[in-house]
């Protein structure tokens, strides 16, 4: 089980700091808005601490964050555990040489990019995003890192939407989440 077995007391405050916005970006979707978590200084601090406690001292040299909300959580974790931060971006944002991975959306496809040379073969990496839904984006990030020989140790998200079965889509890659939202 990759979330807390006996729930850490900090989790309930983190969970209640997240705001749900109905029908965004389209009807039927209950959007999990983490911006209210970022306004709660203690809950945001606790969120980062929970990840740092899990990943510090585990010889992780890379924290890869997925654009754009992964950029909010990833760097503080990277700084605290002594790792590099690597942004995984939408197309045409990263200057210089990149490698690309195409992935499926509900309708159509998108592309994720990473800088060539940002990471070295053999490095141990964590991938972070605010939320896992279907797992498509995280899978693309895993593929990009594995293509250059990086070992993805775990995927970490603040929120999981378990009904969308993202965890299964990650296959053998472990997933750690703080809050599961049904």
């Amino acid at each position, binding site marked *: 089980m990759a979330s807390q077995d006996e729930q850490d007391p900090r989790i309930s405050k983190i969970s209640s700091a997240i705001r749900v916005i109905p029908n965004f970006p389209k009807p039927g979707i209950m959007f999990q808005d983490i911006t209210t978590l970022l306004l709660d200084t203690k809950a945001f601090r606790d969120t*980062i601490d929970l990840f740092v406690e899990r990943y510090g001292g585990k010889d992780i040299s890379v924290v890869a964050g997925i654009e*754009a909300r992964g950029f909010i959580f990833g760097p503080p974790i990277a700084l605290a555990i002594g790792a590099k*931060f690597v942004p995984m971006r939408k197309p045409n944002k990263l200057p210089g040489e990149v490698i690309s991975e195409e992935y499926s959306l509900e309708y159509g496809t998108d592309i994720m990019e990473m800088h060539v040379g940002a990471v070295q073969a053999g490095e141990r990496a964590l991938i972070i995003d605010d939320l896992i839904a279907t797992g498509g984006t995280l899978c693309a990030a895993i593929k990009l890192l594995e293509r250059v020989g990086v070992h993805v140790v775990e995927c970490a998200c603040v929120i999981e939407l378990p009904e969308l079965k993202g965890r299964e889509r990650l296959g053998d890659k472990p997933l750690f989440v703080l809050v599961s939202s049904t």
Partner: protein
Amino acid sequence: MFAAENGLKGDPRLQAISDAIRVVPHFPKQGIMFQDITTLLLDHKAFKHTIDIFVDRYRDMDISVIAGVEARGFMFGPSIALAIGAKFVPLRKPKKLPGEVISEAYELEYGTDCLEMHVGAVPPGERVIVIDDLVATGGTLSAAIRLLERVGAQVVECACVIGLPEVKGQRRLNGKPLYILVEPREIDGCC
């Protein structure tokens, strides 16, 4: 105002930060020498120095909000906010923020763009620092300042890692102080 002119002259951390930034010529188009901070994020020591310098400056200034401009402002702002006990407020491109937003348009070289902020994120009277990786013309930062002032917040300063020549010699942007760590790197023998 550059950090080196404001108490950090000769601070070796500024050189380390500057050295860690990569220049990518002709991105996103011919003639632009793009200042790439992703290499700074790969250099844990230099990245930590960057955050530490901003934290040291703002920790005793009674700042309650760090507002970060999408997307590279998100890479620096939250760490500063966490260290000084402030809230982090993302200022985003249109249609990214769910719920009620206010918008501010600003000029690009060709056309206009728009910056959005959540209604209610920043109550009136709060003291705010706006952060982005780089300031060029100041168009985006000016839009950020306008957004925050529209809700009655007090923008204390704008903070950037890099300041392009257009702002050199300017201590203020729209009347707000500007605090910059380094000048752009150049490539030797370049076009």
